[in-house]
């Protein structure tokens, strides 16, 4: 007889599946109970205290001025339109900020890796300082610098083109004469770019087949410019129109107010300065880490194959570094977009600031749902673009 080692099986409460399903069930129930308790309280509060709710306010007139805005706006416009104007402000600030911060950040990141000791030290100090000081402090600092600029009539003027004073910075800007006439021009740009891409592709294929060809990228860009210039001449000579006119800023009236051109208000200027300088310090570290992640052997192999310095950087180092750079870069773009919500502190009407003002005359719950939707939409768009790009450049496993 074997000793009585009868296996009774695992008790029910220790079955993995039982544990897992109980955990899920309990946590699900807990969350549902909590959320419905909050919702019930909120509905009670709304009904008992007669707090306004719903979305009917959207058609009402907002009747509050918005500082600087990129879409045309009057105080008599509706809440919905004002919300869109504010969202556009945030969107434009974030896109311009992303482009400028990426340029500055890449520059500083490369400077960090410079063989020149002084340059790399300067870049290091830049990064360590601006990254470690709250953006709000930086924004206030820039805002007061802008406020301390001389008044409009005594402002700085550069060659009658740039005006810098405490009302902001005025720069020459393009003014498009009208959509009808611009369609032809947009067509021309599209044709030129498509032709450039075709030439680039063709040269790449030829290079792979024959082993030598003119630099595809250079020739592609040249094609775009040549077709663009020829097309411009042809259209301009045949119809006598131009794609745009340059609108120059100039002082007007008794107070020397600057009109025409494009004027960045002081708040917008401080916001852009702060956002770009702050975000660039993070982007610089990302770019540096990305470039350092490419193994030296790759660069040495490229040089051994006879690639020039520029081509090594463009076709060997950068494509590999991009894999490391892109995901954190996208999250910096998101941070910049979200950080632009500090604009309210320095008097620029971004989405959060306008929405905050709106809650004084409109139901807060609805406004908050709208802001959250707007920011989540922007975040998800950035993540989507980032993920698509990331998928395209990620390592192909063979």
């Amino acid at each position: 007889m074997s000793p009585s080692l009868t296996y009774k099986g695992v008790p029910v409460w220790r079955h993995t599946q039982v544990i897992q399903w109980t955990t899920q069930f309990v946590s699900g129930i807990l969350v549902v109970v909590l959320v419905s308790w909050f919702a019930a309280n909120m509905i009670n509060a709304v009904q008992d205290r007669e707090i306004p709710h719903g979305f009917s306010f959207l058609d009402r007139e907002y009747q509050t001025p918005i500082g600087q805005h990129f879409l045309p706006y009057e105080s008599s416009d509706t809440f919905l339109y004002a919300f869109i104007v504010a969202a556009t402000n945030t969107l434009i600030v974030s896109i311009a900020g992303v482009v400028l911060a990426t340029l500055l950040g890449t520059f500083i990141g490369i400077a960090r890796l410079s063989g020149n000791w002084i340059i790399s030290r300067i870049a290091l100090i830049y990064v360590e300082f601006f990254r470690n000081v709250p953006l709000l402090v930086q924004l206030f600092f820039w805002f007061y610098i802008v406020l301390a600029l001389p008044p409009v009539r005594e402002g700085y003027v550069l060659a009658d083109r740039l005006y810098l004073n405490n009302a902001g910075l005025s720069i020459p800007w393009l003014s498009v004469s009208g959509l009808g006439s611009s369609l032809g021009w947009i067509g021309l740009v599209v044709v030129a770019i498509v032709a450039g891409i075709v030439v680039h592709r063709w040269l790449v294929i030829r290079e792979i087949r024959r082993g030598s060809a003119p630099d595809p990228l250079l020739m592609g860009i040249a094609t775009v410019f040549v077709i663009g210039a020829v097309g411009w001449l042809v259209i301009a000579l045949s119809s006598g129109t131009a794609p745009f006119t340059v609108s120059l800023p100039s002082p007007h009236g008794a107070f020397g107010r600057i009109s025409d051109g494009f004027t960045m208000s002081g708040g917008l200027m401080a916001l852009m300065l702060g956002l770009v300088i702050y975000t660039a310090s993070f982007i610089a570290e990302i770019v540096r880490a990305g470039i350092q992640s490419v193994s030296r052997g790759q660069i040495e192999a490229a040089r051994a194959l006879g690639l020039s310095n520029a081509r090594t950087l463009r076709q060997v180092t950068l494509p590999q570094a991009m894999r490391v750079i892109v995901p954190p870069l996208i999250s910096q773009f998101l941070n910049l977009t979200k950080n632009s919500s500090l604009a309210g502190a320095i008097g620029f009407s971004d989405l959060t600031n306008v929405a905050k003002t709106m809650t004084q005359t409109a139901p807060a719950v609805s406004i908050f749902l709208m802001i959250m939707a707007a920011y989540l939409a922007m975040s998800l768009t950035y993540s989507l673009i980032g993920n698509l790009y990331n998928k395209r450049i990620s390592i192909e496993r063979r």
Partner: protein
Amino acid sequence: MAAEVRPVGNPPLPPPILERGVIGWMHANLFSTWFSGALTAVSCLVIGAAAIFGINWILFNADWSVIATLGGQLVIGQYNTELACPGQNCFWRPQVSVLLVTLILGMMWGLAGGGLPKRMGIAVAVILSAFALLPYSFERMGMDVRLLLGANIPALGIGWAIARYTPLGTSRNVALSAVVVFVAILLLVRGGPAIPGLEPVSVRHWGGLMLNLILAVGGIAFSFPIGIALALGRRSSLPVVKLLCVVFIEVFRGVPLITLLFMSQVLVPLAFPENFPQNSLFRAAIVITLFSSAYMAENIRGGLQALHPGQAEAARALGLPSWQTMLFISLPQAIRNVIPAIVGQFIALFKDTSLVYIIGMLDVVEISRAFIQGNPEYLASTKELFLFLGLVFWVFTYSMSYVSRRVEENLGVGRR
């Protein structure tokens, strides 16, 4: 055995003068190519000009009196005003809190026996004591204040002695004391109606750097474990748990903190019954903590993803149950690998505490802004004030990243 190889003929010549010593270093790092040389020359000129201008401005043109005028308000905000503390002096409470912190630093020094904790403790205690020597009149800064500030050096010593010569000197006890001290500081600063001598001070009057630090320490302490839980939840194989964690993380990461803070003041009170006890600071602290823990979760998830699966498999093969595998094998390695990201998040949290202006709290940034707004005669010295604030924040955040780099070195990240 092979005989020692002796060099034949003349001893080798030293490397050329251009390749060694200071000149060699300069040749390699400053003038390696003509372009590099030009950069060096230009940047030296720029740095020189900036230095002359900067020193001139700092010493002669800048008006730093605004900082002296704000003085203690930068540190404690409106805490010791007649409004917050009617008919008594409450300044000793934050000061005793600081003494308690120094005590803990002393205990850490005693525990470690030297190195970084020693240097940090001494630096903090000496700097705090140095504030006792500020050239204020005794009207503005009394003897009691100076004595309490000066007591930081003995407090450090007492902490050191406690850790050295009493049973409190184990790492668990020191960590526990740190928690006790944090709670004690909250009680001390808040006070209570039942405690004689500690009249309650409404959280609306908390302010200055004290508020930033309390929010940051509390946020760091809670966002770390919550972040770990969320990261594990997001990697869980249970669909319901995973979904809940993903929604939580993405919503909190997708919306600006400032919007969440504002929401916490307008919407959250509605979500609780009318007579539910709440206060605005507590709500803000919770929002900051949850916001930060969503980011923390993503950092820790990154660390877990980067971990070789062999680690967990080996642990399972040795018979560890899955929770022990996670707790003792996977998590420690994952966290060690993402220390820079975690500390970066701590720093971001500390910087984000300046956003509480949106709910009307007077933290160190907002009290400065409000002061300038209320006293337009100081408008011209705003840049001095905010430069100073930037420097204050920088000292704290830079020390955090310095400590993290040292911790990383001690844990041998990148070496094993």
